[in-house]
C-alpha cells in the first residue's frame, strides 16, 4: 500500500528536480545571451556598410565588409596606440603591485610604529572619487612636468591602483604565519629576500587577482590617459577610440569597428588565459 505512494512521491520529486534543472538552465541561458548579445551585435554592425546599417540596423547578415576595419586602421594608427597602451598598462601594473607589496610587507611583517595609520591612510584613498580630484590631479601632473609622458600616466595608474592592492596583499600577508619569516631571518635572509623569495611565491594568487583587476581598468580607462597624454602621439587605444567617435563624419558601423579593435587585445588575453583567470586568479582575492 505504501509502496506505490512513495514511489509516486519519488517520481514527483524527481520530476520536480528535472523541472528545476530545466528552469535553472533556462535562466542561465537567457543570461548568457544577454551578456553575449551586445558584443555580437557590435561585431555584426562593424561589418556592415553604412547604407546596410541605415537600412536595417537590427539585421544579422547583409553584405559583410571589412572596409570599416581598414578605414579605422588608417584613421587610428593602431600599432602605435597599441604599443602605448601596452607600455602604460604594464608600467602601471608593475609599479602599483611593487609599491603595494612593499607597503603590505612593512605594515604586516615589520613591527612598524604607526604602520596601522599608514595602512589606513592608503586604503582611505580608495574613497576619494577620481572625478573629485581629476582637475587638481592634472594640474599636479603638469606641474611635475609629466604632462604627455609615459611616466606621468604610469605613476597616476600606480597611485590609483595602490589602495586595493595594499588591502588585498596586506590581508593575504596577514594570513602567512610570522614563524616563516622569523625562520628565514635566522637563516640570514634580508627583508628584500624574505619579501621576494618567500612571500611573493606564496601570494601569487593574490597578485594574479590584483593584476587582472588592474589590467582591465588600466587598459580600459579613458579619463586619465585622455588628459595626461592629451592628444599626443603617446595616447592610448581608448583615447583613439574616443577620438574616432568624436569626429563628425563617422557612422555607427565605423565606430563599431573601432570599438572591436580596442576590445580585441583584452578579448585575446581573456581567451588565452581563460582557464587561469576563471578558475584561479580571482580566488586570490578571497581566502
Amino acid at each position, binding site marked *: 500500500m505504501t509502496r506505490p505512494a512513495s514511489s509516486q512521491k519519488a517520481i514527483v520529486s524527481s520530476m520536480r528536480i528535472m523541472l528545476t534543472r530545466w528552469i535553472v538552465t533556462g535562466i542561465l541561458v537567457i543570461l548568457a545571451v544577454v551578456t553575449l548579445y551586445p558584443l555580437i551585435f557590435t561585431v555584426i554592425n562593424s561589418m556592415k556598410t553604412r547604407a546596410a546599417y541605415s537600412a536595417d*540596423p537590427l539585421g544579422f547578415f547583409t553584405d559583410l565588409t571589412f572596409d570599416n576595419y581598414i578605414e579605422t586602421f588608417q584613421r587610428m594608427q593602431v600599432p602605435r596606440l597599441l604599443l602605448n597602451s601596452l607600455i602604460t598598462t604594464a608600467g602601471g601594473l608593475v609599479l602599483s603591485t611593487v609599491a603595494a607589496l612593499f607597503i603590505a610587507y612593512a605594515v604586516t611583517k615589520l613591527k612598524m610604529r604607526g604602520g596601522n595609520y599608514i595602512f589606513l591612510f592608503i586604503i582611505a584613498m580608495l574613497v576619494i572619487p577620481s572625478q*573629485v580630484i581629476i582637475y587638481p590631479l592634472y594640474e599636479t601632473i603638469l606641474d611635475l612636468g609629466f604632462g604627455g609622458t609615459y611616466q606621468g600616466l604610469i605613476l597616476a595608474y600606480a597611485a590609483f591602483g595602490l589602495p586595493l592592492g*595594499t588591502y588585498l596583499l596586506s590581508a593575504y600577508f596577514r594570513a602567512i604565519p610570522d614563524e616563516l619569516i622569523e625562520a628565514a631571518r635566522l637563516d640570514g635572509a634580508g627583508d628584500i629576500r624574505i619579501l621576494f623569495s618567500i612571500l611573493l611565491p606564496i601570494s601569487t594568487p593574490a597578485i594574479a587577482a590584483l593584476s587582472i583587476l588592474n589590467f582591465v581598468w588600466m587598459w580600459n580607462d579613458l579619463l586619465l590617459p585622455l588628459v595626461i597624454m592629451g592628444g599626443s602621439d603617446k595616447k592610448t587605444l581608448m583615447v583613439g577610440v574616443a577620438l574616432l567617435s568624436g569626429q563628425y563624419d563617422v557612422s555607427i558601423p565605423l565606430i563599431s569597428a573601432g570599438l572591436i579593435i580596442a576590445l580585441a587585445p583584452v578579448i585575446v588575453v581573456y581567451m588565452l588565459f581563460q582557464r587561469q583567470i576563471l578558475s584561479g586568479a580571482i580566488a586570490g582575492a578571497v581566502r
Partner: protein
Amino acid sequence: MAELANLASRPNRAEVARRPFIRRETLIALLFVLPGLALAILFKLVPLLRGIWLSFLETRGFEDPTFAGLANYRTMLSDPSVHDSFRNALIAFATLPVWIILPLVLAFLLFQKTPGWKFFRAAFFLPYIIAPIVVGIMFRQILAPDGPLNAVLRAIGLAPLAIEWLNGPTSALLALTAVALWSFFGLGVLTYLSGLSTVSEEVVEAAKLDGARFWQLLVYIIMPLLKSVIGYWAVLCTSGILIWMFPLIYALTKGGPGTATVLPEFLVFTTTFQFLDRGLGAAIGMALFVFVALVSAFVVRRMYIEGSQRK
C-alpha cells in the same frame, strides 16, 4: 642615483652601530612604505588638498581666481540640480543589495555543477573586461526605441514593456544602473565562485538531505560561510558604483533627460569643464567626497580591521 643611495645609507650605518635594532627596523620599514606613500600623497592627497583650496575660490572662466570664502558652497546648496544629483546617487546606492545578491545566487547555481557551468562562467565574466566607454556606446544602440531590446520584447508579446528606456526619468536611471550591473556582475559571480570552492560539498549535501530548499541553503548555510567574500565584494561595489557609472552616463545620457541621470561626479565634471566654474565644481566635489566617505566608512573600517596589525 648611486650617489643618492650612498647618501641615504651612509649616515644610518653609523647610527645603527650606536643604537641597534629598533632604529634600523624603523628605517627599513619607512623605506618600504615610501614609494607607495609618495604615490598616494602626490597623486591623491595633494590633488585633494588643492581641490579643497579651489572650492574656496571664485573662478571666472580662466581669469585668476580670487578668494570667495563659502560662496561656492552657498551656491551649491541652493542649486536644485545638485540636490537631484545626490538623490540619484542615493537611488544608485539603493540598488546595492541587487549587486551583492544576484551574483551570489548565480554563483551558487553554477556551483551546483549545472550542465554547461563552465561556459556560463566564461560568458558572465566577459562583459567585465569590456571598457565602460565601449559599453556605453554599444548600449546606446541596444536601448534605442527601435533597438534590439524592444524588438525582442515586442516579439515575445511584451510590447507594453518596450518603452523608450532613456526617456523616462526613473527608467533612464534604472537602465543606466542595469547596464553598469551588466558590466560588473560577472566579476561578482567569479569572486563568489572562488569563495564557494572553499565550502565543502558535504556540508551542502548534508543540508540537502535534511530537506533544505535552495533559498534555505543559500541564506542559512552558504551566506554565513561566505561572510568575508560577501564583505570583499561589497567593498568593491560600494567604492566602485559611482566611478563605474560615470563613463556610462557620459556615453549614454549625458545626465538627461533633464537631470534624471545626473550623478554628483558628472556634475563636478560639467561644472568644471563645461561651465568653467572650477571653484563651484570643486565645492560639489567636496560634498561628494563627504557623501562617499560616509557611505563607505563602514567599508574602510572593515578593510582596516582585516588588514591592520593586531595589537
